[in-house]
């Protein structure tokens, strides 16, 4: 029972960054932009938040938790927004190839994270010495203690920081936006067929920019969550690992619907840490278990392509640049 509880809590901890990343990527892809730079943007969001908090805590006599959290949030959102802006400018305005730009952005973002992570470690006096205790506290347990102290439920449901709950709220809001609002409908049209959207008087460029920027910012929060809540305010090089790619795989599993991504992220999170909880695994066989999220994605792809329901397919114009006068 305790083992199951620990496993559940660990799975949720893994699920949150995936959910942020997938929600951001879904919003982006709905505009027809296949932003493969999301893994890099998540690194950028993470390290920038940490940098902001670190510089604040080291330059102020008596750092406040609230200000630290705000600075971390703003720095993180700003950095990931810039990543999204770079991507949009290159692919929408200059109409570069989306895959190439995305992959380059990921390479850049991972390097950006590790470079500044290393610099911070140096400033802090050595590897593992970065500490932003005050700020990290603000990212820790969020709900009042009487809820957290309820046996079993308290641990599984109420023991997390505010970013965990925010990830679900954002996923629900984005789903509502996409299915129940005019702006969401317009965005879907842009991703399905920009020429149709254009002819209907929808500003294709603006929609692509906005959704990519907001999508990048949401994904960046996933990086911030990892650094602040999961690692409690420190940095380890490449520590975020391949979670960004997993988030992109989750988009497919969720069939481009953020609400699906909520449970999907739980499945992925559970599969991601499953190898720790299966007794008797060797180094080699644990790698096989780590493959499971990707196997699940492939199975889902096979199943959905077999059912061939048009609503469950990727946006038709995904990955293509739009130029009005082209025939």
């Amino acid at each position, binding site marked *: 029972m305790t083992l199951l509880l620990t496993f559940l809590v660990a799975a949720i901890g893994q699920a949150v960054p995936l959910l942020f990343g997938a929600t951001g990527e879904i919003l982006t892809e709905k505009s027809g932009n296949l932003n493969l730079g999301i893994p890099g943007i998540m690194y950028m969001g993470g390290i920038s938040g940490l940098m902001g908090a670190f510089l604040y805590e080291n330059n102020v006599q008596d750092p406040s938790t609230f200000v630290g959290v705000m600075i971390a949030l703003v720095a993180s959102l700003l950095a990931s927004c810039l990543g999204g802006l770079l991507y949009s400018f290159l692919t929408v305005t200059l109409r570069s190839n989306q895959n190439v730009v995305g992959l380059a952005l990921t390479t850049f973002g991972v390097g950006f994270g590790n470079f500044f992570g290393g610099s911070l470690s140096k400033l802090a006096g050595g590897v593992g010495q970065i500490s932003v205790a005050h700020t990290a506290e603000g990212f820790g347990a969020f709900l009042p203690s009487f809820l957290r102290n309820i046996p079993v439920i308290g641990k599984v449901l109420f023991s997390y920081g505010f970013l965990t709950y925010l990830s679900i709220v954002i996923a629900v809001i984005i789903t509502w936006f996409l299915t129940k*609002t005019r702006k969401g409908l317009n965005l879907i049209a842009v991703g399905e067929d920009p020429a149709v959207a254009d*002819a209907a008087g929808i500003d294709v460029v603006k929609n692509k920019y906005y959704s990519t920027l907001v999508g990048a910012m949401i994904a960046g929060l996933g990086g911030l969550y990892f650094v602040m809540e999961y690692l409690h305010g420190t940095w380890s090089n490449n520590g975020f690992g391949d979670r960004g790619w997993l988030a992109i795989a989750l988009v497919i599993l969720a069939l481009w619907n953020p609400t699906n991504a909520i449970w999907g992220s739980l499945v992925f999170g559970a599969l991601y840490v499953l190898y720790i909880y299966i007794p008797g695994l060797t180094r080699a066989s644990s790698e096989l278990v780590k493959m499971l999220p990707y196997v699940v994605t492939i199975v889902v792809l096979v199943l959905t392509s077999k059912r061939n329901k048009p609503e469950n397919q990727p946006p038709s114009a995904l990955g293509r640049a739009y130029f009005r006068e082209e025939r």
Partner: protein
Amino acid sequence: MENYAIELKGVTKRFGSVVANNQVDLALKKGEILSILGENGSGKTTLMNMLSGIYYPDEGQILINGKEVSINCPKDAFDLGIGMIHQHFKLVDILTAAQNIILGLDGGMKLDMKKINQEIDALVSKYGFDLTPAEKIYNMSVSQKQIVEIVKVLYRGADILIFDEPTAVLTPQETERLFTVLKKMKLLGKSIIIITHKLNEVLEISDRVAVLRKGKCEGVVETKDATVESLTELMVGEKVELNIQRSDPKKPEKRIEMRGVTVRNSEGLSILKDISFVAKSGEILGIAGISGNGQKELLEAIAGIQKVDSGEILYYPPNSTTVEKLSEKTVREIQNLKISLSFVPEDRLGMGLVGSMDLADNMMIRSYRSGDSRFFTDRKTPRKLAKKIVDKLEVATPDINTPVRKLSGGNVQKILVGREIALNPDVLMVAYPVRGLDITSSYTIYNLLNEQKEKGVAVMCVGEDLDVLLQLCDRILVLCEGKISCIVNAKLTSKEEIGMYMTGARKAGV
């Protein structure tokens, strides 16, 4: 001046070195139906795209309701009350009719689909359409999609409606219904432009006709003063010989034989039922039928694209006594036997040509396996061939390095058919070879088919225009619901007779 809805003055638009519209002057009166008539590539669609904000004119003025305007984007066009119904529908497949109709409109943040559906229902009943707002587009037929397009522009309050080739994809009955709708809209005070190249429709529906040729406006006439001959003359600029030179088949030999062929689709329904016939060398066998009665599958079965469930397809090569069983061969093996299929699908580029490749490279799709070297490709021959086709069929293109998708539909078709004929096939199958083509281009294609026939090729041609089939073909095979309802001598039959066989009103033994 007040009673003009649209006036164009000296409008010019260029694409690179091609002038699509040259100093066009045109006016649309309020409450009238104006037809714009012209051959393929005469600049009709380009002209209308400038009114709907897709393109921006290089020179000239546009006046709407007497005021000079500048239409920079589609939204400007809506605001001016201009609604365009495109030839290729501008609809998002995964959304419902209602969602497509309100796409891009301002309104409350929240979508109240119930209220919107009611509004659309009200509009639908006012004009007498047949439309369910909550239906998804991908479940709809072509004519239903067109209705969605019309309701879309009406919902946006358009007073000026522009139709680009509205009947190109409709059946005769659907066309009738569309015309009823157009007349009703005219009665309710809408001004309408119809772009078309079908003369009989122009005469039936419009009040005035404007004729475009090579991007220039050749004249505007009252429909009541116009005749088919006078309009044709304006349109093509020269008298067209309307007779196809049909010679008798020389030494016909068996080429293709079908014996009891049955084809089923993925749902297990029979598309072709027990088909048996013979196609001979040196003759053109026409295949007639209402669309969707198995014409496409018949040709595809011979080409090896369509799986045959029972029966056999035999091929008798010239100057040989062997018999090949086509139903057991792959597509490539069949191609190597010099059996060529040139299928012109509705969207033209879908099968046969690659839109983003240039003319020469599209020639290579058929010839990349030939050449001196086994490793390197031969690029010179396809380039020569592309040049030859451009010259011979008068393809309007800047050069042979232009991607095919930048050419107009008719030109794309000429390239496709030209390439298939250049292979010197022994059996040539063409489907809808003149779909969407103007008169001059159509006759170029007919003459090409006739030439092939005289060279001893067995030609099979699926066509839509019965007049043409009757004049071009030697025999006509009529399909109805996947069965052969008759095979007749084209010289001894009439349009009415074939029509009866097509609809199944009359049946006969083969």
